[in-house]
């Protein structure tokens, strides 16, 4: 057998000089799997469009969300139909305001409520749950009993009380939703932390003298993020639903501000006057967005599921 020593030498040299190989991180793997999930990808695209719509939609229409079209006032059922001629793409609402502009405004508020609520849940819930789970013992017991107590309060009732007592405002809505949204999250995170805590790499970090908080931030939280991400995408629609429900009751955001829930409520109230578009357009946005969130959450879960590995 002949071995070309020249070639072998070259090979060795190449190996030595070889640039650093890029690794496949678990995140990268998950992203690849997510991209293969058609429903989730389509949902992501639609949702992006909805978000773009809520941010820039007002530039595409001559009407603002406050202006009242005096021409059609009083005869919305006849003249306020959706049409391109009048510039009311989605028609007009009961007062003669442009529904398209109103939906843009409503989407913005609804999405904001959802995202802010989920964000509070993610940050507070993750840290709280991770600390409780990692420290363990009595601290854990006390921290989780507090969560139990908060959970046993009928929050819808408290939320409505808050809105009645302190007046209806978007800020109050955020406070109310933020207060309760992190409870479930902290429980889920604590449970996960308990499993991760017993992995050897956490013990390795302890053995090399890494301080406790750093272990939580560097070793526990990154390994939790999969669960947190999935749960957060499912939390956003939950928040939107809560807000819509409260707005539907007439306690949420206040005129002239609006949200999907408030628009649906108005549309449902006037449906017998022959103006169905006032219900269908906000409802369509609401339903489509919620579906998108659920599909994305589903896709994320499949992509991050450790059983796949």
């Amino acid at each position, binding site marked *: 057998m002949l071995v070309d020593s020249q070639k072998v030498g070259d090979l060795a040299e190449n*190996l030595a000089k*070889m*640039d*650093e*190989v*890029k*690794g*496949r*991180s*678990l*995140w990268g793997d998950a992203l690849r799997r997510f991209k293969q999930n058609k429903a989730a990808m389509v949902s992501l695209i639609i949702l992006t469009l909805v978000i773009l719509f809520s941010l820039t939609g007002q530039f595409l229409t001559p009407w603002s969300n406050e202006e009242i079209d005096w021409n059609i006032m009083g005869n919305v059922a006849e003249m306020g139909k959706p049409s391109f001629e009048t510039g009311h793409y989605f028609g007009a609402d009961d007062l003669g305001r442009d529904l398209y502009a109103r939906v843009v405004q409503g989407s913005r508020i609804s999405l904001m409520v959802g995202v802010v609520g989920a964000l509070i849940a993610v940050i507070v819930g993750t840290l709280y749950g991770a600390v409780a789970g990692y420290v363990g013992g009595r601290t854990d017991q006390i921290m989780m009993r507090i969560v139990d107590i908060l959970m046993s309060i009928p929050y819808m009732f408290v939320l409505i009380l808050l809105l009645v007592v302190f007046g209806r405002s978007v800020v109050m809505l955020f406070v109310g939703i933020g207060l309760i949204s992190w409870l479930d999250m902290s429980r889920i995170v604590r449970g996960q932390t308990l499993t991760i805590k017993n*992995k*050897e*790499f956490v*013990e*390795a*970090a*302890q*053995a*090399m*003298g*890494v301080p406790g908080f*750093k272990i939580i931030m*560097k*070793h526990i939280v*990154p*390994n939790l993020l999969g669960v947190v991400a999935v749960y957060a995408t499912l939390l956003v629609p939950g928040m939107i639903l809560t807000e819509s429900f409260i707005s539907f009751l007439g306690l949420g955001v206040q005129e002239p501000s609006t949200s999907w829930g408030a628009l649906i409520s108005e549309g449902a109230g006037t449906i017998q006057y022959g103006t169905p578009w006032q219900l269908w357009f906000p409802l369509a946005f609401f339903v489509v967005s919620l579906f998108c969130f659920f599909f994305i959450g589903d896709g994320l879960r499949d992509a991050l599921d450790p059983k796949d*590995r």
Partner: protein
Amino acid sequence: MSETIMQVQDLKVYFDVLPQGAMPWTKPRRLRAVDGVTFDLKAGETLGIVGESGCGKSTLARAVIRMIPAEAGSVLWLGQELLKFDKKQLRNQRKQVQMIFQDPLASLNPRMNIGEIIAEPLKTHYPETPKAEIKQRVREVMEKVGLLPNLVNRYPHEFSGGQCQRIGIARALIMKPKLIICDEPVSALDVSIQAQVVNLLKELQDEMGLSLIFIAHDLSIVKHISTRIMVLYLGNMVELSDSADLYAHPRHPYTQALISAVPIPDPEIERNKEVILIEGDLPSPINPPSGCVFRTRCPRAADLCAQQKPEWRDAGDGHMVACHFHD
């Protein structure tokens, strides 16, 4: 005579365990995980610790570096009482002791790449180290343990078990420690790879003058690497001696049984040799047998064994054994 880096005196580790379905007011019961262990460790030496699973060997290894609080006893680290160290001293001590674990993949954080994992001890203890130097040192140790340095950006799941264990060893080495505690570092690996890892540890030890505490449940692995071997049973020391001596002339009935169970590569001898079977199960460390802990399974047990705990005695040439009727 090389210096003694660690002296352990009569170390005891107890756990309080609650029985299943216990009420908050029920008294927890004492589990004697480690019950009076004494040994010392010299620089550059390997102490093998052998015993069945559940005999307290992992607990012992963690207690001597204070990963688990000890109930009583003393651990002198370079002449100072480790069990009384404050936070700062303990942090300092952590630089000099590192650990290698049983499950190589599980001991590496799956979200960090190899470079980050190996550099972590360095970054923890010397956060101001410049990036270039960290990179340089990571490359050095990777070469030392036989990994290609250009793999630094890879993630643990892209490596085999043996390679993962090398990564774990690299992480332990980067601080140039005095002592590495190896908690069954090869029992999760293939037999062919076990030898590679053990040899690697041995080479590194010679090169860097490391001390090792090497835990295993099986004598055949420990034999190759250890200077001295300690046999544990139910949290008690039963025998401690020079590796070759222990292997050639085991004095304690338990050690004799362990050694007879090790397969011999020669089929002729293997077929004819007599395997001493130990009957019964390991008793519960919550209520260990009176007198000698091994008496429930000992072929030589006599009345004396139940009444009196055998003392730790020298059976000649520093061969320590705890048995009334040792050979």
